[in-house]
C-alpha cells in the first residue's frame, strides 16, 4: 500500500521544475504572449529533451511508456510555470487516441514522430466533452469530413489534427489538408493555443484499430485530469507568490502577512487546494490501474480543482493588492491559465451533472 509518488516521479518533478525555471521565465512567457505565438519553440524543445512529448507513447514506438500520473505531474509543472507549450492534446490526447483506436500502421506512422516531438497534434473533441455551441459539429462520410469544430486544443502550428465526429468516430487530418480552414481563437490565456477548424469535404484518415468510443472517453478523462493538474500547479504557484508578497509588502509599519486577515486568506487557499492534489493523483492513477473508476474521478477532480482554482486565483490576486491587478507583475498569466482550464472540456456544473449520471442519480 503506497499512495504517493515514486522516487522516479519525484526526480521527474525536480528536473522539470529546474528546466522550466530556466527556459520559461516570466519574461519569456510575456514575449510569447505579446507576439501572439502559438507556443514557445524553446520550451517545446527543452521539454522534448526530457521526453515529455513521448511520455505516454509506448516504448516500442519510441516513447517513454509512462503512466497518466507522470503526465499529471508534467501538467502540474507546466501550470506552475504558465509554460507556453503544447501538451494536453499533442502529448496526452493524441497518443491515447492512437494507442486505443489506431491501426498498427497508423500507430507506426504517427506515434514515433509524436514521441520525438517532431510533429504536433491538435485535438478537436470539445463538442463531445462540453456540448455543442454555435452549431459546431463534424460529420464523417466516405472518408470525408464536413462541418466545424470549436476549441481545438494545441491548435496553433499543429501538423495533424485528431477530430471527433458527431457519430462517435475519430479521424486524423493533415494540418494542410485541402478544404480545411483554420481560424485562431483568441482566449484570455495567451500561453496556450485554441482554434476553430472548418471542414469542406476534407480527406481524413479514420482511426480503425480499436474502439473509438472508448478511446474518446479515455482521451476526455485524461485531458480533464491534465487540466485539473495544470490548475493545481498554477494555483500553488499563486499561493506561493501571495505568501512571498505578503512577507515583503509593508503597511501600517508591519509586513501585511502578519495581519490575520491576510494570513487567513493564504491558509484558506492552501487548505482548499491541497486535497485536490490527492484527488488528482487518485484519478490519474485510476486511468492506468482502475479504468472503470476514471470517468467519475476525472469529473470530480476537474470540477473540484477548477472551482478551488477560481477561488485561489482571485484570492491570491487580492493579497497582492493593486499590484496584483497590474500587468506589470504578470500574476494575471496564472489567473487566466486557471480561467481557461475551468471552462475547457466541461465546466464544473456540467462535470457534476455527468458525475450524477454515471452514478445513476439521474437519467443520462
Amino acid at each position, binding site marked *: 500500500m503506497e499512495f504517493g509518488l515514486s522516487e522516479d516521479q519525484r526526480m521527474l518533478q525536480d528536473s522539470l521544475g529546474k528546466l522550466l525555471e530556466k527556459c520559461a521565465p516570466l519574461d519569456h512567457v510575456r514575449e510569447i504572449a505579446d507576439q501572439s505565438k502559438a507556443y514557445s519553440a524553446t520550451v517545446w524543445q527543452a521539454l522534448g529533451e526530457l521526453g515529455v512529448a513521448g511520455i505516454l507513447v509506448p516504448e516500442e514506438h519510441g516513447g517513454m511508456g509512462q503512466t497518466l500520473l507522470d503526465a499529471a505531474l508534467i501538467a502540474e509543472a507546466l501550470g506552475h510555470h504558465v509554460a507556453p507549450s503544447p501538451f494536453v492534446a499533442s502529448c496526452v490526447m493524441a497518443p491515447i487516441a492512437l494507442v486505443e483506436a489506431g491501426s498498427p500502421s497508423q500507430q507506426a506512422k504517427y506515434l514515433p514522430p509524436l514521441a520525438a516531438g517532431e510533429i504536433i497534434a491538435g485535438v478537436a473533441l470539445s463538442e463531445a466533452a462540453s456540448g455543442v455551441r454555435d452549431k459546431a459539429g463534424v460529420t464523417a462520410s466516405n472518408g470525408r469530413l464536413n462541418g466545424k469544430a470549436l476549441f481545438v486544443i494545441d491548435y496553433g502550428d499543429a501538423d495533424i489534427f485528431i477530430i471527433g465526429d458527431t457519430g462517435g468516430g475519430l479521424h486524423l487530418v493533415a494540418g494542410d489538408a485541402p478544404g480545411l480552414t483554420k481560424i485562431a481563437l483568441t482566449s484570455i490565456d495567451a500561453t496556450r493555443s485554441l482554434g476553430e477548424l472548418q471542414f469542406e469535404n476534407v480527406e481524413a484518415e479514420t482511426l480503425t484499430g480499436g474502439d473509438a468510443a472508448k478511446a474518446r472517453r479515455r482521451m476526455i478523462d485524461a485531458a480533464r485530469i491534465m487540466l485539473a493538474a495544470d490548475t493545481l500547479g498554477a494555483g500553488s504557484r499563486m499561493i506561493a507568490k501571495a505568501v512571498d508578497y505578503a512577507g515583503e509588502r509593508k503597511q501600517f509599519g508591519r509586513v501585511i502577512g502578519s495581519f490575520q486577515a491576510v494570513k487567513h486568506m493564504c*491558509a484558506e487557499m492552501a487548505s482548499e487546494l491541497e486535497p485536490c492534489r490527492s484527488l488528482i493523483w487518485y484519478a490519474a492513477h485510476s486511468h492506468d490501474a482502475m479504468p472503470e473508476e476514471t470517468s467519475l474521478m476525472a469529473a470530480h477532480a476537474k470540477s473540484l480543482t477548477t472551482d478551488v482554482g477560481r477561488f485561489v486565483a482571485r484570492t491570491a490576486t487580492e493579497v497582492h493588492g493593486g499590484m496584483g491587478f497590474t500587468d506589470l507583475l504578470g500574476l494575471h498569466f496564472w489567473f487566466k491559465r486557471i480561467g481557461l482550464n475551468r471552462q475547457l472540456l466541461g465546466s464544473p456544473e456540467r462535470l457534476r451533472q455527468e458525475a450524477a449520471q454515471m452514478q445513476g442519480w439521474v437519467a443520462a
Partner: protein
Amino acid sequence: MDLAYGPEYEAFREEVRGFISTHGDKAPQRFGVARPSDELIAWQKLLIEHGLTARTIPKQYGGYGAEPDILKSRIIAEEFTKAGLPSGIANQGISMFVPTLLELGTEAQKQEWISRTLHGEVIWCQGYSEPGSGSDLASLQTKATEDGDDFIINGQKIWTSTAASADWIFCLVRTEPDKPKHAGISYLIFSMKTPGIEVRPLKTMTGHAEFNEVFFTDVRVPKSQIVAGRGQGWFVANATLKHERGMLGDPNQAGTRLKQIIDLMHEEMLDGERLIDNPLFRDRLTQLQSRVLAMQFHGLRLLTASLKGEDPGIARLIVKLQGCEINHQLAALAIDALGEIGVLYGDSPHLRAHGSWQHRYMFDLGLIIGGGTAQIQKNIIAERGLGMPREPKVAKA
C-alpha cells in the same frame, strides 16, 4: 502508487472478518454514553484479547502488545466501520491520557492507570479550557499552591465532557505563577471525588448537556500526582493535543455521512419526485462528494507518509479545518433537502433520523470551534505550513 495491501495484510483482514462473524453478535447495540455499560466493557476486553483495540499498548500495561502497524490498525477500522460495530470504548482517557502516560509517565503511573483505563474501569475527563482561556490556553489561571506535600487547587474549568461521570481528571494548573505563562503550568491527575470539586452540566445549543463546568475550591492533591515535572504541563498538553487533533475531521466519518445523504435523497419525496431528482440539491450533493473523496484520498496520502516516516507538512495541518467543515456542510445539505421537515427536532411527529441532522449541524459547530478553532487552525496552517510571520506581540500596558 500501489493501492493493494498485499497478501500479508489481506490475510490479516480475513482474520478481522473472522472475528467479526464469530463475535459480532456480542457487540453492544447502544454505545457513546459517557459511562461504558457492562456489555461494552466485556466487548472491550474481547477486542483487546484479540488485538483489535489497544493493539500496540504493551502487554504489561494491559494492551495486546503488537508492534505498531498503521496498516493493520486501518484494516481493523475499515472492517469495523463496514460491519457497523463499535471498535471498543472511545473516550478521552483512552485516546489522550493513555498515550500521554506512555510517552511521559513514570513506570508506577503506567502500572497504576493504563490497564484500568483501557478496560473501562477508570473514566477520565480533561481539565484544560477555562472561561478566560480558550484559544489562549496557556493563559490559564486555575492555580495550585504548595502546602507541604500537597497542592491546593482553586479555579474553574469549562468544556469538560464526561466530567459528571468521570472518576479522575487530568488537569492543567498554574503551579509557578512567577514564570512566563507557558513555563508555569503543570499537569496533575486527581480523583473527581476529592472534596472541593463541583460539576455543573453545561447545556449547549443542541439542548443537551454534552459538556460541564468544573469548579475547584481548595482541592487538595498530593504533589506526587504530577505527570512529567513541575512547569512541564504545557509540553505534556501539547503531546496530548496532538492525539486529539488526529481524531477530529476524520474523512471516513464524512464518507458515512455522505452515504446516508445519498440514501436520504433517494428515499425522500417532494411533490412526488425524489430529492435526488432536484438538480440543485443534486449539484450540492455531487460537490460535497468531490470534497469527501478528496479528503479520503488525502487520508491515504497521510497514511503513506507516516508509513515512510515522512512529515507530510501542510497536508496534515489542514485535516481538522477541512474535515469539520465538510461534515458541517453535509449536515446542512441534509437539512436543506428536507425543507420544513428539516427543522423538526426532539420527539416531533414526522421527524427523520431521530432529528440527528439538526443535532449534528449544531454539534459540528462545536467541533469547528473546539480542539483549536477554525481561526487558530488557519494561523497554524499559515505560520507553520506556509511560513508566514507570527502576529506581533501586543506591548504590555
